[in-house]
């Protein structure tokens, strides 16, 4: 099968406009004859479900949480980028496009990224109209800040809760459609399979998490807006429930998986405090604007923050400032993360686990006064104090990188359709816009762009093409069979009755992934990881213990299903990382580095999207390459020296 | 009329009735106190008797008084209804432990305080209002006009130690009821503004202390004299 990205011909700035004109339209009177399923109610899902409902389609929306408002988009702190150029500081659609392509280390499609930058301006308008209380200046106009090292101030924000406010905006639009009867909402319902008949996605199989009932839902198209798979690492900044199941089930039904190994690791998270750790908490990277990152020059494992204040200046190694004199503590996320790992590998990490570095505000407080620092970071300092018990005004913070976002995801074309016709992937669930590394404040932008302004156009083309009569009812044998398969899988999990809790498998998988497929990857390590994951998967299916029954609320069963899929995805990530013998963005291959240890991209060999095709259980997946063409930007190696 | 029924059968509407009647009763208390303070005059009850005669015969005052009774009944009826509804809202099972750290005692116990006030009201009405309106009264004459000597009734009761004690105790209940109720009424009616809230709070708390204290002072004073 040949991958067709369907990027329209023509100058980059005209592609989307031209494409929109060329897309077929569904007659307004016919829209009510089409059913669309939306899985997930984060920024992408809620905005898509609401927009499609407004257009007149019949939408069924699903979320596993108790309310659509809980989706993990809600946790995004920093902001949302848009090329509004309200600050008159030289921003433009082209600049946002350029920054995103470059930030993604030239592994994203030009066409998609330009469209993202183009619709970014409409997103802000939309959100303001919904009543999202963005930060404002005294004159009543919207405030902006520069985020993540951007040269222009294009980030819109609502305190440190931008994701929350944007999601609640989309949730309110969704609620309006639920009230209007255009969207039917299924809370506490998890998608466990997608049904494909005659090569087209026709519906999904779900489990009601309260009653355990397995049900079939049919539709003309299915949208997966199910977020990223960072929880394959067990510890991540994702919500506990975030999972890959919907995407993975789709993958096994024919949707290719794009660049699965591209993971973003965020440098400023609160370190692990012990074996009980269940998740990692991110602190805004704005902290690096004033905090200085250091470790002792000599190994001092177990060093406490309280003792650090006594360490003399000459015994400290401000390693980011030393290695990157021009960018210092403000190097990109992946560089900061990797260097923290290196010093910890050298044994110079601090804290009880030795897996932490200091982020010190003593100099900033001396320079600006405590008050200024409090104004800038007060809420973050409070949060840190609450979690760790240390006071960052008096002792340095301890930070360590954590998995934060997955750039990889289901492969989609320009229309956001996967390789299965009628099956779409939006937001973090797709691979499309961030290449090998995502810029700060771009995730919210992409989720809403896909849901509000891309899919409502592109889905019409597909629906108009197939026609409203082309729908399969849930009585079709394929649905019956899918229900049986899902039931069989649930029963199989319940009947193992082994001795280990699900969490333990998940934690072991996470450790393997973090060790060998995390910040720094090598052929040797990846091969080791592959074997370990296979063994762990085999053990899981013989030794996991799930108590309770399948026909009631059973969180252990939910977790088990998700971990089972992570155990398969993990191996594909390792395969992808093995295949990509270059360093780019968040993916660092030790074999592909400059003599002084910096990442080295190999554009002649790897300027492609790796799209993996599932071919059967325990069969190697087949790699398809989508070559990336760069006509509007010049490829350069990143340097922060 | 549907909107009217909807308004006053909603939780907010019912609460507004509580607040409005409550505020009216607050006004009533102030007026009542002004009259009672005449008991402190050292004139053998003359000023008080003249005042009482006026109050019980003036048609306008009598109309307002009927309204006052109606408001008291409405205030009680609403509170009973809302209390039952609020209990039901908790659901079939209550909490095993509640810490009580997050709210003031008075605010949680307006029902108990209100019941105490009601008990007081019954005694009070029977002994004074009932006596004045329906009982056998001694008649006194001031400047040729005859007045019912309610002062004598008051001194009769306020000479009894236990009666004074009950009266003072009930005034404390009134005080606590007002401590929460006064400001709460403003909040319920939506009369909240950062500029004026401190004033409402101050007046409310001061009223809750001063008015019941003055009411309580009278029997104590009369008992001691």
């Amino acid at each position, binding site marked *: 099968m040949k991958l067709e990205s369907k990027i329209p011909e023509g100058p980059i700035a005209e592609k989307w406009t031209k494409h929109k004109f060329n897309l077929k339209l569904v007659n307004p009177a016919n829209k009510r004859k089409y059913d669309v399923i939306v899985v997930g109610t984060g920024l992408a899902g809620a905005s898509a479900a609401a927009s499609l409902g407004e257009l007149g389609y019949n939408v069924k929306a699903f979320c596993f949480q108790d309310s659509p408002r809980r989706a993990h988009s809600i946790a995004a702190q920093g902001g949302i980028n848009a090329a509004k150029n309200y600050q008159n500081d030289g921003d433009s659609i082209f600049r946002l496009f350029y920054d995103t392509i470059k930030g993604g280390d030239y592994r994203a499609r030009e066409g998609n990224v330009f469209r993202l930058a183009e619709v970014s301006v409409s997103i802000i308008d939309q959100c303001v109209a919904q*009543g999202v209380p963005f930060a404002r200046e005294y004159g009543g106009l919207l405030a902006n800040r520069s985020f993540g090292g951007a040269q222009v101030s294009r980030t819109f924000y609502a305190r440190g809760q931008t994701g929350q406010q944007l999601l609640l905006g989309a949730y309110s639009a969704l609620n309006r459609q639920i009230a209007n009867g255009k969207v039917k909402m299924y809370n506490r319902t998890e998608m466990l399979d997608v049904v494909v008949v005659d090569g087209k996605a026709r519906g999904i199989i779900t489990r009601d998490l309260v009653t355990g009932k397995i049900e079939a839902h049919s539709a003309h198209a299915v949208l997966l807006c199910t977020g990223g798979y960072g929880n394959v690492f067990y510890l991540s900044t994702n919500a506990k429930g975030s999972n890959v199941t919907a995407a993975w089930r789709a993958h096994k039904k024919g949707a290719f998986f794009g660049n699965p190994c591209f993971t973003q690791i965020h440098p400023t998270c609160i370190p692990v405090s012990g074996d009980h750790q269940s998740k990692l908490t991110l602190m805004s990277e704005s902290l690096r604007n004033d905090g200085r990152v250091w470790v002792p020059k000599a190994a001092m494992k177990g060093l406490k923050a309280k003792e650090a204040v006594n360490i003399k200046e000459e015994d400290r190694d401000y390693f980011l400032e030393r290695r990157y004199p021009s960018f210092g503590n403000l190097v990109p996320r992946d560089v900061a993360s990797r260097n923290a790992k290196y010093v910890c590998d050298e044994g110079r990490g601090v804290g009880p686990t030795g897996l932490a570095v200091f982020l010190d505000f003593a100099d900033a407080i001396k320079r600006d006064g405590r008050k200024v620092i409090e104004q800038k970071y007060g809420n973050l300092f409070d949060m840190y104090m609450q979690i760790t018990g240390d006071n960052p005004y008096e002792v340095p913070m301890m930070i360590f990188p954590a998995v934060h976002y997955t750039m990889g995801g289901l492969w989609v074309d320009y229309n956001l359709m996967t390789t299965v016709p009628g099956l779409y992937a939006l937001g973090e669930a797709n691979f499309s816009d961030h290449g090998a590394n995502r810029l700060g404040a771009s995730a919210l932008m992409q989720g809403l762009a896909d849901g509000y302004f891309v899919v409502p156009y592109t889905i019409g083309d597909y629906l108009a093409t197939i026609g409203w009569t082309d729908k399969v009812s849930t009585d079709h044998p394929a649905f019956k069979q899918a229900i049986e398969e899902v039931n069989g899988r649930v029963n199989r999990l319940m009947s193992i009755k082994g001795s280990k809790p699900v969490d333990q498998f998940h934690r072991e998988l996470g450790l393997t992934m973090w060790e060998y497929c995390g910040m720094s990857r090598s052929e040797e390590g990846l091969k080791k990881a592959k074997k370990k994951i296979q063994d762990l998967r085999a053990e899981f299916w013989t030794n996991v213990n799930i108590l309770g029954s399948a026909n009631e609320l059973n969180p252990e069963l939910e977790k088990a299903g998700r971990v089972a899929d992570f155990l398969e995805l993990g191996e594909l990530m390792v395969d992808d990382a093995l295949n990509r013998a270059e360093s780019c963005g968040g993916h660092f291959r030790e074999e592909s580095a400059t003599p002084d240890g910096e990442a080295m991209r190999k554009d002649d060999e790897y300027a492609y999207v790796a799209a993996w095709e599932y071919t059967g259980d325990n069969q190697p997946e087949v790699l398809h390459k989508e070559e990336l063409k760069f006509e509007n930007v010049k490829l350069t190696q990143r340097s922060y020296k | 009329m549907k909107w009217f029924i909807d308004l006053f059968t*909603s939780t907010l509407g019912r609460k507004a009735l509580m607040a409005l009647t409550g505020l009216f009763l607050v006004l009533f208390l102030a007026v009542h106190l002004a009259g009672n303070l005449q008991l402190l005059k050292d004139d053998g009850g003359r000023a008080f008797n003249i005042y009482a005669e006026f109050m019980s015969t003036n048609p306008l005052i009598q109309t307002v008084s009927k309204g006052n009774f109606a408001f008291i009944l409405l205030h009680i009826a609403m509170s009973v209804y809302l209390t039952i509804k609020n209990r039901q809202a908790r659901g079939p099972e209550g909490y095993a432990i509640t810490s009580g750290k997050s709210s003031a005692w008075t605010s949680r116990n307006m029902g108990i305080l209100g019941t105490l006030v009601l008990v007081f009201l019954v005694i009070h009405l029977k002994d004074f209002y009932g006596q004045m309106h329906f009982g056998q009264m001694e008649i006194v004459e001031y400047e040729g006009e005859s007045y019912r000597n309610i002062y004598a009734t008051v001194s009769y009761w306020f000479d009894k130690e236990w009666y004074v004690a009950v009266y003072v105790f009930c005034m404390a209940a009134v005080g606590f009821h007002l401590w929460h109720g006064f400001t709460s009424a403003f909040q319920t009616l939506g009369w909240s503004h950062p500029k004026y809230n401190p004033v409402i709070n101050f007046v409310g708390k001061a009223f809750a202390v001063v008015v019941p204290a003055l009411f309580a002072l009278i029997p104590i004073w009369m008992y001691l004299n």
Partner: protein
Amino acid sequence: MKITLKIWRQKGTNDKGSFKTYKMDHASPDMSFLEMLDVLNNDLVRKGEEPVAFDHDCREGICGMCSLYINGRPHGPLQTTTCQLHMRSFSDGETITIEPWRAKAFPIIKDLVVDRTAFDRIQQAGGYVSVNTGGVPDANEIPVPKKIADEAMDAAQCIGCGACVAACKNASAMLFVSAKVSQFALLPQGQPERMERAEKMVARMDAEGFGACTNTRACEAECPKGIKITNIARMNREYFAAMLTNYEVEAGAGGD
């Protein structure tokens, strides 16, 4: 640290529940409260006992999914969400009582998990601005005074966890409802539907069976996001104004 846990166990909505006591002797002060429950659950699985069901998701205090009434207070002793509560807030040897949110409108699903969809239905009744995607004015077309935007943001921070209902002796949802009514009453974008919104959301709130507000301010004291009861006063104003002045306009039919 060693602790004793008294946890409400209930099989399903219509089953009878009761407290069960569990001893834990290896809790660490650095654990979050939910991590302590994770450890308990994994111990239970190893022992072949069914783990305790509780709601949680983001574990960073923003999704509003975690609940738990701990030692007589929603989200425990600190004014934060349960997921942000750490064991160092408890003392060694302490007995900790954990109950679900209790409200008629929040029926128990299992153990400590309750059904909060009543909140969704209240939002569906009017917690939105009726704009379709696209065709909206430029974001800077309508200036919003910073103060108003900040006040709206204060209200908009509500995470919908239901601690206000749990804390209130009347199981009243007014803090939750008023937060949304307030946000839109303040912003210019909320003006066109201001009256209908207050009417409909209050009516839905009552229909869901939440209690009336008696201004105890327990909700405000326990709200993990510090939502103020001035929002309730504003909702009351909005509601009375709407009920007393708002009227239906009959639009003429036809025109096409």
